[in-house]
């Protein structure tokens, strides 16, 4: 079973990568979505305006996107298989070390992404970015974090593992997906500012602002970012509370400023700051989004920085 789990993960990564290619095809050949009128002018000015040449790549693009979406579902199935077979092999919740934590968190990220796309099919082409971050993180998990299947250390042997670590992993995965539209918002926002009232051909856009042409309107991205964070924040809060209850039973105190606890607190405060900034009309939306991005940076510090560099009570990474 553990062999199956270990071979399913590369399959999932490969399928996600193929999906990424499909999204990239859709992305490259589709017309710009955010500013359709302007794009039409550009096409018309760039070459002989012919209906057939325009419609064909668009169909091909949509096909690429549809294939990519199917591949994402298949990748998610293989991904889920990795987790389940690992759990069966280890005879426990597959959340006992950093490798398992990241694999599970990435699955939550993909699952939330698929949930979003199911409800809002017109965001499909953003799957390029969603699969990109997941492939990157899973790549790190498979190469540097991998730990063979093993039983839990005594400190983790508690039913609180299923509650606390699952909550932490789920909220991390959802925050990860929230990070994607947050960054895209910044790109699109810059793009909109630079192209406002100017014919597109006259503006020279550098990467990554040039990506903005094919992104949804900034309000759409901003609202999506907010809703994802609103979903993740209570789960993160619950992860902290359940962690405190477990810590009381295991270490005798509900809170002890262990490095992992400190960074949970920092992320919580930063994300709370984002929600407050978002609710305050006098704070610009760009500022609020930057706070959300800082929030994700603190999550990464907690996951990689603290696990690799600082020794604490939460040193279960198995590295």
């Amino acid at each position, binding site marked *: 079973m553990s062999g199956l789990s270990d071979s399913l993960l590369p399959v999932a990564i490969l399928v996600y990568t193929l999906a990424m290619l499909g999204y990239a095809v859709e992305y490259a050949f589709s017309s710009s979505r955010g500013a359709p009128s302007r794009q039409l002018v550009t096409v018309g000015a760039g070459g002989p305006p012919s209906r057939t040449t325009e419609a064909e790549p668009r169909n091909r693009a949509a096909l690429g996107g549809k294939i990519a979406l199917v591949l994402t579902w298949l990748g998610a199935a293989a991904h889920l298989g990795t987790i389940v077979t690992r759990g069966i092999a280890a005879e426990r919740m597959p959340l006992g070390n950093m490798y398992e934590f990241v694999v599970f968190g990435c699955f939550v990220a993909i699952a939330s992404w698929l949930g979003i796309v199911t409800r809002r099919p017109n965001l499909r082409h953003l799957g390029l970015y969603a699969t990109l971050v997941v492939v990157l993180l899973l790549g790190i998990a498979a190469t540097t974090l991998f730990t063979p299947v093993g039983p839990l250390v005594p400190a983790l042997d508690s039913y609180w593992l299923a509650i606390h670590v699952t909550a932490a992993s789920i909220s991390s995965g959802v925050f990860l997906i929230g990070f994607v539209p947050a960054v895209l918002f910044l790109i699109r926002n810059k793009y909109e500012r630079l192209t406002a009232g100017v014919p597109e051909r006259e503006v020279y856009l550098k990467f990554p602002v040039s990506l903005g042409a094919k992104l949804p309107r900034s309000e759409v991205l901003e609202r999506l970012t907010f809703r994802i964070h609103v979903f993740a924040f209570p789960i993160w809060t619950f992860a902290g509370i359940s962690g405190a209850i477990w810590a009381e039973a295991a270490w*005798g*105190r509900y809170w002890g400023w262990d490095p992992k606890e400190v960074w949970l607190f920092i992320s919580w405060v*930063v994300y709370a700051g984002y929600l407050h900034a978002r609710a*305050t009309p006098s704070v610009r939306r760009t500022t609020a989004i930057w706070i959300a991005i800082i929030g994700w940076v603190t999550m990464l510090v907690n996951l990689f920085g603290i696990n690799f560099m600082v020794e604490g009570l939460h040193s279960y990474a198995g590295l």
Partner: protein
Amino acid sequence: MVAIVRKAWRQLTSMRTALVLLFLLAVAAVPGSLLPQRGVAIEKVNDYLKNNPGAGPWLDRFYFFDVYSSPWFAAIYLLLFTSLVGCILPRLRTQAEALFRPLPDAPARPERLPVSRTFDGTAEDFAARLKKARYRVAIRDGAVSAEKGYLRETGNLLFHSALIVLLVGVALGSWYGWHGNRLIVAGPDGEFCNTLQQYDEYGLGARVGASDLPEFCVRLDSFKASYLDSGQPLSFTANVGYLDGAKEGTHRLKVNEPLRLNGANVYLLANGYAPILEYTDKFGRKLTTTVPFLNSDPMLTSSGVAVFPDANLDPATGKREYGQQIGFQGVYLPTKPADPSVGRSAFPTEKDPALMLVAYRGDLGLDNGIPSSVYSLKQSQIDSGRLKPVGEPHMLVPGGEPWKLDDGTTVRFLGTKSWVAVSVRHDPGEPIMLTGAVLLLAGLLPSLAIRRRRVFYRDGQVGALAKNEYPGLGAELDQLLRDKDASEVRV
């Protein structure tokens, strides 16, 4: 003057200030995770100060080793809480008023509101539908006003009030809580009773005195650990007996299963081996001691000392020649490595145990009243030559041949006992913290998920608006108008 105070208060309670304070709080928490903290691991702080004689004292001066109890950290969170109170008090009043204030009249033309529909029915009919959907409804002059979603603000206020409950819980814990750490060797002789003198290390809350500790005793009956072949631990179980007031009992103490006594909980922190040594002195007297050795690696390579300050006393006179005290410095390997030069244990259980001893004779330096570690001999006595090594280091096995020293005295290694290190803790703030946490979550969910919205009806026209961003308002209105059965319900 009043104006200045008023302005400062308004500044402090503004959302911008709160945001800055939140950001400062996050930044201020960072150094505590990078530098060692006294409250977490004091020995690491001492190491840091020793290794960084330049920066260390300066960092210490600015509380960088006590970040979370530092004045600047406290200043940030106290300001934040003041700002919080200043923010929620007026909102509490507004919310209470909003719940009782009559609903506003329907506008003359509801169809001008952000979301509008038509409804071919009477005002009463529409009001009944709204009531079924749990709106607060008022009918005036044939027009309907309705509002829903007060729980959003209520939840928001509950969330923020819960933060204050948490602060109270923390304060109570730091005033009335206490904790102590203690090493307990297996057997009736190792029994530990809950008094300050018996702790190896302790911390009392500001309002706790030595006499406030509840009375109980704990004894280690047996200890069992299991490991994988790699040495990774699988389980630790300490079978303990306790006397709590008049109640006697036993408990299987495990890492996630503390012993909960009346007024304190006992937690399992660590475990190890305590070798038993028997020394036969010049006069043929046998002296026995059991000394816990501290382990330095996961394979339980352990080290410690056994001292015999009363050795070689002349039974006739009760006196001793100077320099006839004896002590042993030892390293215990529960499983001897295949290569004896390694000097570290190969496995944490006692598969092939061996005790390496170095004998010292002379003046142990215990009579001068200066407290010293029970896990090492006094280096100053060795350096000054008052304590001299005797012979070559020697390896002993449990129950094996005694080691005969040059003066004819012998030492035998009888075996080992297990020891566990326990933490004993009491924090009366815990129930308050749990209550606060539950309220926090109970308030957070509606404050994020619920939207406050108003619906108006006049002359067949329906209009609605939401106070908070609510893309689903139109859909909700459609549902309200579609639902046929609702019109039959009259409230």
